[in-house]
C-alpha cells in the first residue's frame, strides 16, 4: 500500500519535471532557432526546419554589412550603456547614502515623493521630455540618453535599503572624530561597503540601457548615431534584408548574444535583485 503511494508520488513528480522542462524549452527554443538560422542560407530557412547549423554565416554577415553599420551601432550601444550605468551606480549610491545617514529636514517627505513617482508610467513624461529636448537643442545628441540616468529612483530605493541593512551608522563616528570630510568618508567607507549592492543594480541598469528602444528612437535622427536596437528595428525598411531572412537572424543574434553572455555569468545577481525588489515592498 505504502509502495503504491510512493510510486504515484514518483510518477507525479516526473510529470511535473517534464512540464517544467518543456516550459524551459519554450523559453530557449526561439534563441536556439535564431542562432541556428543565422548560420543557414535564406533558401534553407524557407524550405526546411532544422536545428543543425548550416554554413552560410559569412554570406549572411556580408549582406548585413552591406546594409547596416553594425560595429558602429555596437560601439554606440556600448558607450551609452556603460556611461549611463556608471552614472546610475555612482549617483544612486551617493543619494541612497544621503537619504540613509543624514537626518535633514524633509528627508522622509522627499524620499516618499520619489517612491510615489516611481508608480507614474513613463509615457506621461515622454512628450514633455521630447519637447524639452527639442527646446534645449539636444535632439540627435547622447545627452538625453545618458544624463537622466543620474536619477534612477528604483536603484536609490534598493541601495538605501541595502546600506541600512549592511552598514551601522556608528561606522561614521571614528573618521568624523579624526576630522575626515563627509564626502571622503562616503568614498572611503560607504562606497566599498555598498559595492555588492551596487554591482547587482549595475547589471540591471546596463541591460535596461542596452535594450532601450523608444527614447533612442525619438531622440536620434542620424543613422550613424543609432544604437543597436534602433538599427535592428530599421531592418524592416531595408528591402534587401526582407528577401535575405538569414541576415535578419544574424543582426538579431548580434544584439542578443552580449546579453546572453552577461546573463550566463550574472544570472544569480540579476534574480536576487528582482526577488529583493518585491520582498522589501
Amino acid at each position, binding site marked *: 500500500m505504502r509502495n503504491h503511494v510512493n510510486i504515484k*508520488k514518483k510518477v*507525479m513528480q516526473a510529470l511535473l*519535471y517534464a512540464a*517544467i522542462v518543456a516550459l*524551459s524549452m519554450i*523559453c*530557449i527554443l*526561439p*534563441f536556439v532557432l535564431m542562432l541556428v*538560422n543565422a548560420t543557414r542560407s535564406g533558401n534553407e530557412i524557407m524550405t*526546411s*526546419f532544422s536545428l543543425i547549423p548550416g554554413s552560410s554565416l559569412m554570406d549572411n554577415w556580408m549582406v548585413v554589412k552591406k546594409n547596416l553599420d553594425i560595429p558602429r551601432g555596437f560601439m554606440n550601444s556600448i558607450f551609452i550603456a556603460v556611461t549611463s550605468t556608471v552614472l546610475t551606480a555612482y*549617483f544612486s549610491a*551617493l*543619494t541612497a*547614502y*544621503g537619504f540613509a545617514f*543624514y537626518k*535633514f529636514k524633509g528627508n522622509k517627505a522627499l524620499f516618499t515623493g520619489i517612491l510615489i*513617482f516611481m508608480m*507614474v*508610467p513613463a*509615457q506621461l*513624461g515622454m*512628450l*514633455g521630455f521630447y*519637447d*524639452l529636448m*527639442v527646446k534645449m537643442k539636444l535632439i540627435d545628441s547622447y545627452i*538625453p540618453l545618458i*544624463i537622466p540616468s*543620474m*536619477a534612477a*529612483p528604483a536603484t*536609490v530605493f534598493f541601495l538605501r535599503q541595502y546600506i541600512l541593512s549592511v552598514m551601522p551608522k556608528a561606522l561614521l563616528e571614528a573618521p*568624523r572624530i579624526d576630522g575626515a570630510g*563627509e564626502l571622503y568618508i562616503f568614498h572611503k567607507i560607504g562606497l566599498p561597503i555598498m559595492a555588492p549592492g551596487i554591482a547587482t543594480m549595475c547589471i540591471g541598469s546596463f541591460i535596461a540601457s542596452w*535594450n532601450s*528602444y523608444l527614447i533612442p528612437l525619438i531622440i536620434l535622427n542620424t543613422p550613424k548615431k543609432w544604437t543597436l*536596437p534602433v538599427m*535592428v*528595428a530599421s531592418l*524592416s525598411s531595408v528591402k534587401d534584408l*526582407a528577401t535575405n*531572412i538569414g541576415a*535578419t*537572424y544574424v543582426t*538579431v543574434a548580434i*544584439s*542578443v548574444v552580449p*546579453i546572453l553572455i552577461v*546573463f550566463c555569468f550574472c544570472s*544569480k545577481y*540579476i*534574480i536576487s535583485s*528582482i*526577488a529583493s525588489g*518585491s*520582498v522589501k*515592498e
Partner: protein
Amino acid sequence: MNREKKKGLQNRDNMGYLFIAPFMIVFVAFSLYPVFRTLHMSFTDYTGFNEPTFIGLANYARVFKDKLFLEAFGNTIKIWGVNIVLQLGTAFLLTMVFSDMKYKMKGLSIFRALFYLPNLIACTSVAFLFKTLLDWKFGSVNQILVGLGIADQPIDWLGTPSLTRCAVGVIGAWMWFGNSFIMLMAGVQGINSDYYEAAAIDGAGRWKIFGKITLPLLKPILLYVAITSLIGGLQIFDIPYLMSLDNQKRARSVNTAVMHLYNMAFKNRQIGYAGALAFILFFVICICSVIVYFMMYAKKEDER
C-alpha cells in the same frame, strides 16, 4: 562647548542635501518637470512648431470621440487579457509547484534563470525574432506545426487580426512570466518557516496549508505583481509596434493605446492631443489599480 558640538552635528545632517542634490536636480529636470510640461501641453493645440494656444478641455473631450483610439483601447484590453491570464497563471502555477511540500521540486535556481531569459532580450530583437518565426511561408513555427501534423496547412499568424493579437499577448506572457514567478517565489521563500511547522504539527494537509498560510501571506506580493503587470500591460507598445512596422493592415489590428499616442505625437504632430491621451491612460491605470487593490482586500474581509 555642548552647544557648539550640537551645532556641528546639525550641520553634518544638512550635508545630506549635498549628497542628494545631483539626483534631485536631474530628477526634477528630466523626470518631474516633463510630466508637468505634458500636462500643460494637453490643454493646448500644440504641434511642436506653433505657439501653443490654450483650448481648455477640448483635447480630453476629443479622446472619447476618437474612434481609432477607442478601437486601439479595445485592442489593448484584448492583448492584455491574453497576456495577463497566461503570465500570472503560469507564474502562479509554477510557484505552487515549487513551493509544494510533498514533491519538493529541485533545480529552482536553474529553472528560474531559464524562465527569466526571455525578459532580458531587447523588445526589438524579440519582435523581429517572432515576426520571422511566425512568418506564413518561411516561419519555423509553421514548419514545426505542419511537420508534426498538428496543422494541415500553414497558419497565417500575422495576417489574421485575432491571431496576431493572440500572438502578441502570448509573446508578452512569454517575456514576463519569469519575472512574475521570481517575485512570487521570493515571497513564498520569505514566509517564516515557523508557520509551516506549526501547521504541520496541527496536522494540516498541504492544500490547507497553501490556502490558509501561503496564499494570505503572499497577498501583498500578489497585489504588487498584479498591479505592475497591469501598468505594464496597458502600456504595451514595442512588440505590436515593431511587429507591424511594414504592414498597415496588421498595424491596425494590433494598434494599442500607446501606439496610437505615439502616432499622434510623432507622425501626426498633434502633441497637445497626445498629451491628453497620456493623461487619460494614466487615469485609467490608476482606476484599474485601485479596483485590483480593493478586489484583493475585499476578499480578505470575507474570509474572516
